[in-house]
């Protein structure tokens, strides 16, 4: 099918089915069952087997008449991509449709207090008893877990296998007595994440994804998608002046989904505000600050052009050069330097926070949010290892974690003294 045929098909279907007076979930059920909600998914599972590039035309047509698309906010797309790649027929039938309709919400249960950079060192246990896996342990950094219906769980099912081989991947029902979710307050005052505690939580055998021991490999699918969508702009609100209740429902859904991410622009350092702030405060006339501002501008511009070089090479089908692996580390440098320059521009006003601080608290939020940038999604140290080993081809780190996982040295439970 060519692009115009697709456009005609979706247009015809929308003309017959789109109705702003429908309930949001009900409308999306029609959308999911027609395959137009996820046209690049397989036709057996709520899609139409369309090439992802062609499916953009469907979004255009939806936007054209102000129709709302399938749900794709939050963690649900990580779940969808993983299930499409690794789940069995029954699992796909059960979970994919409510992902698209927005009726069910998801979270990711990977990181643990004892395994951050070394994610495969997870020690949350999954023990098979009859037809159920019994889950015990703790996860952390779980965005939206407090309103999730299901979690993507990575847990250790075999302690005698080497680290990466003893993990399994489950779909866990979050709404059960053995699961406790606690919000985790960050140093910037937001609570975008949760801790999740499992005490004899239960997963039916049928909710194991793939085979026991496949967990690490399946988690890679989830993480690859997460990395691709890292910091991509979240879906914008459908623009309409219509008072139909479906739009209100949609706005509420987006607000809940985007809430954890609202400080993310500040985490990146807000380089876009620097010149304005320097002009407003007069710092633009300080020769020392001018040097810092210029350094930041050079760093941010060069990183931007480096990303464009990487994209252009990829688009031209050229082999990936080093420029493609550097963005995350560059972003850390930018965030750190931007926070410093914002501090020096604000001078005394950097003492303040909240409504008393410049720009209604935005500047203060930059200063206490940028430390996350060099940790989340792979620390700078891990990024440097990856660049050194995979791009520059330098020797790998010596490993002390081969052999059965139960013999590998791990964190002790003793808490170190805080500063």
């Amino acid at each position: 099918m060519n692009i115009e045929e697709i456009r005609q098909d979706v247009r015809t279907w929308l003309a017959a089915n789109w109705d702003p007076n429908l309930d949001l979930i009900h409308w999306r059920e029609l959308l999911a069952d027609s395959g137009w909600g996820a046209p690049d998914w397989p036709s057996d599972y709520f899609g139409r087997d369309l090439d992802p590039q062609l499916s953009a035309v469907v979004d255009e047509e939806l936007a054209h008449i102000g129709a709302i698309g399938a749900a794709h906010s939050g963690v649900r797309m990580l779940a969808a991509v993983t299930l499409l790649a690794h789940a069995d027929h029954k699992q796909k039938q059960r979970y994919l449709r409510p992902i698209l309709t927005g009726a069910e919400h998801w979270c990711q249960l990977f990181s643990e207090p004892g395994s951050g950079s070394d994610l495969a060192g997870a020690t949350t246990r999954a023990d098979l008893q009859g037809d159920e896996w019994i889950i015990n342990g703790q996860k952390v950094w779980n965005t939206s877990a407090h309103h999730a219906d299901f979690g993507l769980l990575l847990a250790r099912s075999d302690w005698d296998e080497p680290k990466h081989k003893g993990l399994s991947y489950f779909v866990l029902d979050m709404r059960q007595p053995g699961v406790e979710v606690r919000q985790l307050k960050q140093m910037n005052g937001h609570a975008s994440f949760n801790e999740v505690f499992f005490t004899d939580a239960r997963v039916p055998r049928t909710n194991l994804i793939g085979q026991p021991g496949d967990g690490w490999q399946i988690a890679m699918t989830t993480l690859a998608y997460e990395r691709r969508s890292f910091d991509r702009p979240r879906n914008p609100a459908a623009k309409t002046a219509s008072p139909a209740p479906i739009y209100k429902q949609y706005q509420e859904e987006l607000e809940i989904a985007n809430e954890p991410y609202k400080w993310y622009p500040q985490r990146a350092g807000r380089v876009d505000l620097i010149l304005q702030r320097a002009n407003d405060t007069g710092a633009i006339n300080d020769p020392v600050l001018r040097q810092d501002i210029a350094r930041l501008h050079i760093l941010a511009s060069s990183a931007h052009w480096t990303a464009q070089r990487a994209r252009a090479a990829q688009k031209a089908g050229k082999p990936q050069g080093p420029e493609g692996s550097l963005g995350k580390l560059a972003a850390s440098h930018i965030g750190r330097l931007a926070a410093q320059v914002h501090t020096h521009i604000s001078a005394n006003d950097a003492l303040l926070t909240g409504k008393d601080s410049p720009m209604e608290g935005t500047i203060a939020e930059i200063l206490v949010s940028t430390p996350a940038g060099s940790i989340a999604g792979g620390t700078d140290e891990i990024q440097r290892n990856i660049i050194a080993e995979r791009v520059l081809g330098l020797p790998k780190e010596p490993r002390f974690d081969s052999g059965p996982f139960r013999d590998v040295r791990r964190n002790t439970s003793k808490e170190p003294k805080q500063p």
Partner: protein
Amino acid sequence: MSTQFIFNEDQEQFRENLARFLADKSPTTEVRAQMADIRGYDPAVWSMLNQQLGLSSIAIAEQYGGAGFGPQELAIACEEMGRSLYCGPFFASAVCAAHALSATGNEAQKQQWLPGIASGEIIACLAITEHAPMWSDEDIRTTATSNTDGKYQLSGTKHYVIDAQVAEVIFVAAREIDGSIALFATDTGAHGLTITPVQSMDATRKLNTVTLANTPAERLGKADLPSLMDYVLVALSNEMIGGAQTLLQSALDYTQLRFQFGRSIASFQAIKHRLAELLLEVELAKSAAYQAAHCLAANEDVREHASLAKAAASEAYVRVASECIQLHGGIGFTWENDTHLWFKRAKSSEVLLGTPAAHRERMLHAITHGARAKARIG
């Protein structure tokens, strides 16, 4: 804004041919020989470079015997020059002098010199700097006086003139009676003209003091010195990132070969992480240098990007040069090891045409006062 972020196949082919030629004809043994040579280049290699690859002609318009390529091909050539540290009057003649003449000369003057510069048979150089590192009207105290017969005479002293020791013609910036700045052409054998080589720390780039005492000269035209400098900065930035890449590769090769405590030193995170950071810094500077060349090719206002590239490339080059010596350990501090050849080029490029701090200031001034200032700040 220009949007080309990768080179096309012809450009890549040109790079490959040039790189192969330079690897063959300009190994470090040859670089060292030219460092010790008073002329600083091998005329046989120079003429091969021009006959086989048309090197000096790349940025010169076709009607003057040039290849008519643009700033991007020039940038590629400069990057490869910097990578191999080729010693020859390319930068002085084919970049600085050719551009100054193209920008200021009249038709007859371009016909007179450009074809020779393009073929490499004429070596020209550009004498602007007197005391200030950056080219500006205020720095020019050399005077041009005209006789009643329309002939000009120049008097003054020019410093840091690259490759004047081998040039046949020098283009000189001088102040006219009305106070404005123009470029003039004078033969190196002209009356009252003295060329005194100075000892430069970077012996791969020969510097001279040129004094003029009532030296007869031909007037080319009014000169916009900051714009001339922008062009040269773009070339120099691309040359610098070429050299920086050589040093990074050298550090990568050496640290993997060197074994201490039973392992290659490149397996220590203390070293791996530094190399990863160096790669980042070099790649960022490379993007800045390429972007400046794209900008020049698209005929956009290049001031901001030229100074941005100069600051980024010179800081990256000096940092990778210092780190490269450190990563080599004691051997890196010896004359025998080649690292110091690039280290010295890095140091000379850092200050040539203005320090990084001066260019950061110049860039910021262009942002807040330049053509795009309103759109960006408003």
